[in-house]
């Protein structure tokens, strides 16, 4: 039905859209998601041929075929015939889209009488029918736009878009001005109206895209960065931006604390549009913009092929005599992701961490870091993988001052040419973990600090080498609840900023819920169940997992049981 190929739009010197390729079949809904300013609305307007009216210096290249006709080649007269009749759009800005001197009913039937030359009676009937379909209150039909609520205006606009029975409908944030309850009802109605049409849904709301569309394209900086069936994209995004969007989304099915995307949208001259905000960018990303590469049903535009698998363990086993403390564990931790290993004491969690770190020698299996097999744990390995421990007071030498503790990894790895360089780096990382950087603090000994401060110093020490993977072994279990909360927030913030992958080891599934993207349950040295955190909490099936969930702290349940007694 609609085929867009290599569509580019330039305002003056600024490229808003770059080489967009899209196809929508009849009966298919494609959603375009992205933050404000990524070019979503421009795409919609360019399909309507309405860009010329937005600005003088706009330039459009590429082809937009509606069935067999290239509408970029049409003149204004031809476009007017196509608009409303074959392509209709529901505009985002409900306030200005209605003519203030017409009543709702007149407004909806106007295109029918103007474009299709229907007579007044037929047009009124059809309009009433549509207004009813969108649940517009019947007693408000003769109201003027200024008398309507935003939701009512939105409904009127939707009715207007569908009144001429178009082949292609562009919905630009159709539910943005609606409250959650009416959003649900209008989406139900839209779904009926959209049947047998091609629909392009422009939205920043992933829940709307998820409930409504078959395929989703993620737009950033005028490029499509990921294109995939909606279900796949929302369950496992592959582009770092798509994941960032998903992490910023507030939903009842989200367990992990909200995380955003570092930085803000900015215009990029060359290279991948996302590279200033991307946590896994390499040199190439600054120079060349990546092509959208197809990976089966999904396409991703990323020089690194999407989110990188950072750490991979394959059939890792550690045994003492006949006893297998870790029994052929295989897991992947992706860049910027938190994988929680949850299990009771003695399940082998810490042994797993130590085996990955090389403090224990695995008996079988292998560890891969960024795709390369780790043969021996040398300085290079430790500059990319770091660990924080359960008891920070034990993990820091009580004979070293804060400055010396945090600088030690730099000294060992001979980072920087002199002490001043290292000193600056220590200060920067202390700032990152929200600790004071005054000399007075740097000269303190660990026993002069509070529990939370000591753990922060330990985290700073682990981060000072800029590792890509952090193994956190019960980092909060020795801390008070309020301090634990702060450390959890800190780790999530650092992850957002640095794209740090975290292997989070805990016995507390409630804590894992707040921290992790995925949970793997460990029992007797094996991973018995694993999955995305939200799914694990609602749909896990293994009895051991259920047991852990049942034992997890809930204030409500504690109160119930005390009532009974």
């Amino acid at each position, binding site marked *: 039905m609609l085929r867009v190929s290599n569509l580019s739009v330039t305002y003056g010197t600024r490229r808003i859209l770059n080489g967009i390729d899209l196809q929508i079949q009849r009966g298919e809904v494609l959603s375009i998601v992205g933050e404000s300013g990524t070019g979503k609305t421009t795409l919609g307007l360019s399909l309507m041929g309405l860009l010329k009216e937005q600005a003088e210096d706009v330039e459009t290249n590429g082809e937009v075929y509606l069935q067999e006709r290239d509408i970029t080649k049409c003149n204004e007269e031809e476009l007017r015939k196509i608009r409303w009749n074959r392509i209709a759009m529901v505009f985002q800005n409900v306030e200005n889209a209605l003519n203030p001197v017409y009543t709702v009913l007149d407004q909806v039937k106007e295109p029918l009488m103007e474009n299709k030359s229907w007579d007044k009676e037929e047009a009124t009937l059809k309009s009433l029918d549509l207004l009813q379909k969108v649940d517009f209150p019947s007693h408000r039909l003769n109201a003027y736009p200024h008398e309507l609520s935003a939701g009512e205006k939105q409904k009127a606009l939707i009715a207007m878009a569908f009144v001429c029975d178009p082949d292609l409908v562009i919905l630009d944030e159709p539910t943005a001005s609606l409250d959650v309850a009416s959003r649900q009802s209008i989406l139900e109605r839209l779904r009926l109206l959209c049947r047998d049409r091609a629909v392009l849904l422009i939205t920043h709301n992933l829940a709307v895209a998820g409930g409504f569309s078959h395929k989703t394209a993620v737009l950033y900086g005028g490029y499509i960065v990921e294109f995939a069936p909606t279900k796949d994209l929302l369950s496992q995004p592959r582009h770092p931006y798509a994941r960032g969007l998903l992490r910023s989304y507030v939903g009842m099915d989200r367990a992990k604390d909200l995380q955003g995307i570092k930085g803000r949208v900015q215009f990029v001259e060359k290279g991948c549009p996302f590279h200033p905000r991307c946590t896994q960018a390499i040199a190439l990303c600054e120079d060349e913009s990546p092509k959208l590469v197809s990976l089966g049903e999904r396409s991703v535009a990323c020089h690194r092929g999407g989110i990188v698998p950072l750490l991979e363990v394959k059939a890792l086993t550690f045994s003492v005599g006949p006893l297998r403390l870790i029994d052929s564990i295989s897991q992947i931790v992706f860049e910027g992701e938190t994988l929680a290993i949850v299990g009771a004491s003695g399940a082998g969690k810490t042994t797993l961490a130590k085996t990955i770190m090389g403090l224990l020698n695995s008996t079988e299996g292998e560890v891969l870091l960024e795709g390369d097999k780790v043969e021996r744990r040398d300085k290079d390995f430790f500059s990319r993988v770091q*660990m924080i421990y359960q008891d920070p007071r034990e993990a820091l030498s009580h004979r070293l001052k804060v400055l010396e503790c945090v600088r030690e990894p730099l000294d060992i*790895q001979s980072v920087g040419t002199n002490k001043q360089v290292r000193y600056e780096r220590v200060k920067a990382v202390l700032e990152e973990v929200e600790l004071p950087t005054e000399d007075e603090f740097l000269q303190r000994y660990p026993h002069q600090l509070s529990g939370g401060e000591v753990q922060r110093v330990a985290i700073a020490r682990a981060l000072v080498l800029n590792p890509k993977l952090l193994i956190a072994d019960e980092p909060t279990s020795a801390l008070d609840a309020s301090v634990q909360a702060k450390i959890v927030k800190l780790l999530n913030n650092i992850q957002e900023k640095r794209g740090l992958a975290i292997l989070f080891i805990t016995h507390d599934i409630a804590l894992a819920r707040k921290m992790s993207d995925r949970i793997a349950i460990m029992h007797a040295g094996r991973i018995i169940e694993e999955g995305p955190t939200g799914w694990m909490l609602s749909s896990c099936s293994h009895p051991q997992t259920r047991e852990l969930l049942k034992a997890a702290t809930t204030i409500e349940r504690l109160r119930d049981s005390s009532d009974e007694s």
Partner: protein
Amino acid sequence: MIFEDLGKQLKKDTFGQFGIGLTILFVIVATLCPFIAQDPDAHSILTFQPPSSNHWLGTNDVGQDVWSRVLWGVRTSLLIALGVGLLTTAFSTTIGVTAALVGGAYEIVVMRIIDALLAIPTVVVLIVISAFIKPDIFMLIVLISSLHWQGGARILRSQTLAVKNQLHILAAKTFGAGRLHIIVRHILPELGPILIVSFIYTARMAVFIEAGLAFVGISDPSTISWGRMMYHSAKFYYLPVWKWWLLPPGFALSLLIVGFTFLGYSLERVFEPRLKDA
């Protein structure tokens, strides 16, 4: 930190004050010898003189001033104490720490050598060897040290084993630290207190052994040694000179050893918090 603790501990520890006072006194005497004592080797025909204003402790069989020889003897004893203390501690640290860190066959061999040395009566061996090679004072230092590192090495090995699996040392390993870094930055500071205490006790033992060897006649004749003075004076026990020739070096020796012992006790209390208020 250590010195602050030491200061605090000394304030309430009379034995410690006494020990450190004695040690400092001996060091001052050794330094000022040339100014406060006569030439110890100067002969005269005035032999076997009783104490007088010229010769506070009289003279010996060849007319040398006994008081001056006691003062100069401090130098020998302190040199032995310092030399053997340092060398023995160095031996035992190197061997004990590496045995614990390297492990394997090396550790087994080293531990068997230590067991063997512990079983041998080292003083007897020392006498036999010295009788053959007739050591001067520096040779003697090496000789005593090479036969007395085993006890310290055993203690340091066991301490290193206890320390090496501490979390902060594992953490240092996960920054890529090599053995040398771990020994110098983490293990030695942890062992510091033990090293200092073992140094003091070894020094005390060395002073005693040197005096003992000299007393049985095994010493370099050109060295002024308290043990040798007692050895000579004991030959003239039928004369009354022993009162001012035999007793003073013996008294000085006892005083130095008592000083070291009290200092050692005091340091032990500083480094071992459980003993602090004992």
